[in-house]
């Protein structure tokens, strides 16, 4: 039987691997099942913690993550891809994949060391640095990608980092469920409404097409 900390660490490594894969993939379609898998891993972790800590809140959050981040949002994203099936690869991203992957690994290592030097004494769990690293990976994805669908996936990664952090650092975090629901509502709003408008009005999901917004 695995100890609780070993389960947390093992699942954490799985989450980290999905995060690194997301950085190194330039096609949009494979990113969707990957981020869904990341959400499922996180939900499994929360379910495990809910079981060991007898926490109803964590169990509800695990259920919400499965329903919204592993099912509903990926379904909406796939529909968007179908509408844009001739543009499933992000413009400009293909020749930058190596750079993205190297930057992701470097950022993961830097994030790990920064956490160990600053916050580790307060949060001594061996996997405690992983939410911080995941947060940095999500931010890197938002900063380096210009396709709106890919940015949504980066945002989902940020959301996962937050829930992951709350579960490890502050499982009694007040309003935890409300915050998770709120983040997911925002995610659905982002995906469902603004992407549709963007598709209808601009005919592209690539940012930076409007010269008037420079400067």
């Amino acid at each position, binding site marked *: 039987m695995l100890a609780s900390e070993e389960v947390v660490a093992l699942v954490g490594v799985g989450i980290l691997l999905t995060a690194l894969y997301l950085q190194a993939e330039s096609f949009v379609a494979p990113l969707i099942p990957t981020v869904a898998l990341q959400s499922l891993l996180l939900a499994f972790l929360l379910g495990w913690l809910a079981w060991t800590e007898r926490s109803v809140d964590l169990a509800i959050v695990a259920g919400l993550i499965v329903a919204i981040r592993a099912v509903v949002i990926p379904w909406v994203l796939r529909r968007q891809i179908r509408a844009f099936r001739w543009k499933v690869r992000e413009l400009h991203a293909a020749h930058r994949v190596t750079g993205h992957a190297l930057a992701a690994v470097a950022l993961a290592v830097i994030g790990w060391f920064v956490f160990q030097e600053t916050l580790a004494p307060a949060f001594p769990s061996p996997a405690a640095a992983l939410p911080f690293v995941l947060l940095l990976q999500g931010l890197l994805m*938002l900063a380096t990608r210009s396709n709106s669908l890919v940015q949504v996936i980066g945002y989902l990664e940020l959301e996962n980092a937050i829930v992951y952090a709350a579960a490890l650092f502050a499982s009694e975090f007040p309003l935890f469920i409300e915050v998770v629901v709120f983040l997911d509502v925002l995610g659905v*709003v982002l995906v469902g409404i603004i992407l549709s*408008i963007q598709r209808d009005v*601009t005919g592209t999901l690539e940012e930076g097409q409007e010269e008037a917004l420079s400067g």
Partner: protein
Amino acid sequence: MIPSAPTAALFVLLAAPASGAVLALVPHPRVSEWIARLAALASLGAALVLLVTSATGQWGSYLGLDPLSDLFLVMVTSIYATSTWYSRRYLRTVARPFLTISTYYALLASFAFAMVATLVVSDLGLMWIGIEATTIASALLVVLERKPTSVEAAWRYTIIASAGLTIALFALILLYGATGTLNAFSLAAHPPAVSLPIEMAVVLALVGYGTKVGLFPMHTWLPDAHSEAPSPVSAMFSGVLLPTALYAFLRVYRILPSPVPAAVSDLVLSFGLLTALVAAFLLQRQRSYKRLLAYSSMEVMGLAVAGVAIGGIALYGVLLLLVAHAFAKSSAFYCAGNVLRETGTVRIDEVRDLRHRLPWTGAAWVLSGLGVTGAPPFGTFLGELLIIVGAIATGNIAAASVIVVAVLVAFLGLNSQIGRMVFGSREGAVAGSDAPPASERGMAVAYLNIGVALVLGVASLPYLSSAIRAAVSVLGGSAP
């Protein structure tokens, strides 16, 4: 049992915009408009009652007021009210709006409600939800005019602001993990011992909320959203949304005991100074007058953040600057809306001779430009002066010098461009737009707001000046 005046006012303050957001959906534009106006006036009235009665204290576990929130509430509800009033004439000239008029007013009320809710809660988690709700409520308002640029601006705004707020939430999780509470009032009353997790939480909150405040280098959404949103919404963005996000950061910053650890206050100061300086120089190369105003807001927010780090008398300057700027900048955006409707362009080099084409708008435009850049005797001048005096009083001459440079560069850059638009010869200007001529009657709210910004600099407005003093004491500063 009859509720006390503050309790009743607090109820109205929350209920008015909330019910306005629902009732304004009635499918009759005129009725929707009047519902929105009444909701805005009711919330402004309630905020004034709270200010006059100096409402303080907590209601249950989650609601709480003190002089700082009372001051911000008046600021938010004032600009909400004037923007609602100005919207009618602006909406009339939008050719193919993406939203119906009813939906527009409903979203405007939701946006105001989210800001008001942020200001009346004592729990930092709820405060975060309030700030996040402002993004949801306002993102669709940015695409009102259905332009490709406005859609891209809305997307950038949503994704960048949300990413920043995720960092702020991470900060709150660290804070809760270290202290076991998120009640801002009890944390401020009994500051926890300084530790690395708490300092890290404050720094992450600076980065997170700073994204929404428009701090460099997380500011990239700001000029896009401010310039692409309809003018009444831009006025709310610049005038009150940015200060509301700063308020959320102030509540986290306040939990650090005085004196604030130098590492943290130096970082806050650096972010503020860098933002003010970068914005002042970026402002020089703008071709759009709405982006010009957006960078001016960024410069002011940079000064405010620097003032927070300086502390002491500078805090009085910060609050005075924020209040006066809210009124002056909203006035500037109302003028910009009229100019856009009259000329059909946002390009500075295509607009000339406003003094003849739109004399009332042109005059308000010049006054607003002076007001937002801190010309004497506007309240912004006094606010900026006190921040500089505060920096000198604490021996920080370098910071004072940077602030002086940023203020002068922004002043010259913004007012020279506005001067060209108003007094420049008609040659080279566009003939006019296809939109119906803008009404100068809509300028009444612009004159009202620029008047308030002016009076704040030359006289004590009843209750408001004492309210600023009381709010400064909440932040641990001092008044002149």
